[in-house]
């Protein structure tokens, strides 16, 4: 990774021109896909956000009015706040639990059967998870509350109480995703040379110490990757909310994607929905860049 290695060979121009057609040929499917599925929808999204389009009547250009409205809309800011709580709780718990499971998987040298079992929840669609937990956590007939009641603990309406609902959704999705996160961490741990642990053990380091001083720093690149990927996914929380709470009670679980959906497809305010989507895009983009920067994603601590 030294800059000198990046210097182009002197005869670069000649091989380049002969390779261009072939390179383009190989790149075409990807470029086409990018143009059709990413660039064009993004362009259209921005375009729609500058109109008052309501799906049913022709759109009219209204300039930045949707963006102005957005800054004074308390529900938009509420949606961002609720989404932020969700992301922090979901990503935080998912990273910690995932890493814990990965370390255990390595320590206990468990078999493929158990490893697959840990991954199992990740194979269930979000919607199914939401429906199943909706019944399991129901205040009247739910299994979880039956158990809580039986052991004498107080019962709760996990999805129906506005103080608990967003945390419930975040943790339910943590349960679903943590196996996958663990697997990624586990793969990362496999790349750490056993020599390091051996050396540390010879120096008298405890297991705890080598976790903090070897495992964690060495996992920095994989951590950055997991963080960025799952944060983007986490921001997009929609299905659990749609199935389990419909954004309620009150505004307690009206996350940004659900709010955009309601504005666009229930209230037929496409222009406003698009404006929020554009702002969300800008936000996620910035966050991802900052994260990659902050975690210096390409290098681990112990180089």
């Amino acid at each position, binding site marked *: 990774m030294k800059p000198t290695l990046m210097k182009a060979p002197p005869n670069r121009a000649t091989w380049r021109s002969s390779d261009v057609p072939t390179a383009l040929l190989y790149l075409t499917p990807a470029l086409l896909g990018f143009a059709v599925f990413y660039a064009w929808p993004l362009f259209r999204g921005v375009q*729609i956000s500058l109109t008052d389009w309501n*799906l049913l009547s022709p759109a009219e250009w209204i300039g930045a009015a949707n963006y102005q409205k957005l800054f004074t809309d308390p529900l938009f800011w509420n949606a961002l706040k609720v989404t932020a709580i969700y992301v922090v709780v979901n990503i935080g718990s998912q990273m910690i639990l995932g890493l814990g499971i990965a370390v255990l998987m390595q320590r206990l040298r468990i078999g493929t059967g158990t490893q697959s079992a840990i991954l199992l929840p990740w194979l269930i669609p979000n919607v199914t998870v939401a429906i199943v937990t909706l019944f399991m956590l129901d*205040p*009247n007939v739910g299994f979880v509350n039956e158990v809580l009641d039986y052991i004498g603990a107080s019962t709760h309406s996990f999805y129906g109480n506005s103080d608990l609902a967003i945390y419930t959704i975040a943790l339910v999705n943590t349960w679903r995703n943590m196996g996958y996160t663990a697997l990624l961490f586990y793969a990362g741990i496999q790349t750490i040379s056993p020599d390091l642990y051996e050396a540390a053990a010879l120096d008298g380091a405890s297991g705890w110490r080598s976790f903090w001083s070897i495992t964690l720093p060495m996992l920095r690149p994989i951590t950055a990757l997991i963080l960025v990927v799952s944060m983007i996914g986490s921001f997009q929380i929609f*299905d659990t909310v749609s199935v389990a709470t419909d954004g309620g009670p009150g505004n307690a679980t009206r996350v940004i994607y659900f709010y955009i*959906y309601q504005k666009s497809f*229930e209230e037929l305010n496409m222009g406003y929905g698009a404006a929020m989507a554009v702002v969300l895009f800008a936000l996620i983009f910035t966050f991802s860049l900052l994260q990659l920067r902050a975690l210096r994603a390409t290098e681990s601590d112990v180089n």
Partner: protein
Amino acid sequence: MKFKKTAALLSAAVLLVGCSTGGSGGGESGDDVTLTYSLWDENQLPAYQSCTDAFTEKTGIKVEITQSAWDDYWQNITTDLVTGTAPDVITDHVQYYPELADNGQLLDISSYVEADGIDLDQYTGGLADLWVKDGARYGLPQDWDTVALVYNVAAAEAAGYTADDFANLTWNPTDGGTFGKAIAHMSIDKNGVRGDEPGFDKNNVQTYGWTLETGGGVVGQSQWSWSALSTGFEYLDKNPFGTKYQLDDQRLIDTLTWWQNQIAAGYVVPREQAGQLGLVPEMEQNIGAMVSDGSWRITTWAESTAQEFAFAPLPEGPEGRVTIINGLAPSITASTKHPDEAWQLVKFIGSTECQNLVADTGVVFPAITSAAERSDEVRTSKGIDAQVFLDEALAEGGTAYYPITLHATEVNNEAQAVIDEIQELKVTPAEALPALNDRINAILEG
């Protein structure tokens, strides 16, 4: 449930990429016309199937019915309208038709109505007037619904109430009247202490006197509308198509404050316990003993095997007994290729012939009064006494209309969040309703 929501979202998202061609299927003009007709209530599907069968026999025009549940219905209609594949005739609701009409998606049928000399006075409760916007008519009433009390017969007997007691309940927002006493008395805690007895433990209630149905938006049609309306409160400055909501009205504030006090006292199923499973399980599991509900759910209550339920008229408020009367109507979509045939179908649905067929199934009150009475006889023959809904509909001055405005979905979403918070005891109606009213009126101003 809501899986189809996601599907609708996906299909609508495709539109963002910019394809909007196509046209509705169906045959060419002439004898071989097939109309498409959509509705959401699966309980009513057999009724309207027999109706359209009779229509086909009479006119030779075939009808294809599509049914999708309420949760998906309107998004499907919207998507279909945008892609040009909408049904020729849709079952319409007053919450949605103004928006569709305003965007030029519905056909004005007033000239047809005039040419064919349809008697608009034959429909119960003046409901035909609700389907006129800016002088254009978008539907002929097919049915109506009112709200009445539903109670658990065993719980009522145990509390010492007879059917007569329930028929004469009174209510006011100050002390709750005999109705307020009834829901307190019918609440029982885990030790068997009743809500109006000393030592009632409101944190450990076995059965609540009143059941909470979540939702209802700005209207609270089946939930609380009757209590607010019985104080003389009116939703809008003018209905239909008023320009301002009046949610800052002291009478509404008093009404919802009274309800909030009942929740706090442990006489109403708490908002969070009402859960997402809906009203019917709450009543069937005897979590709540009494509730107000719309006539569209008569069969559910009457045919319940879990409990025995009976119907009673709404309590009489300071300004009398008032129920919302509302109804559905078939509308013709503007994109139809067969407007004349579609009108034939709408006309038939609005006729005595079809409405008598609907009456014979007993699932709903048809719009024409004679057919509604006939449906009541059908229910009586099945041992179901739901006469109170009909009595309320015909009572002089005892009905009010559902508030009809543009942007109704947006208004309802805004209001629902506040109603939730009131029911959760997080805000008081006195502070929340005026603020909500300002926001809603800003939406109506556009």
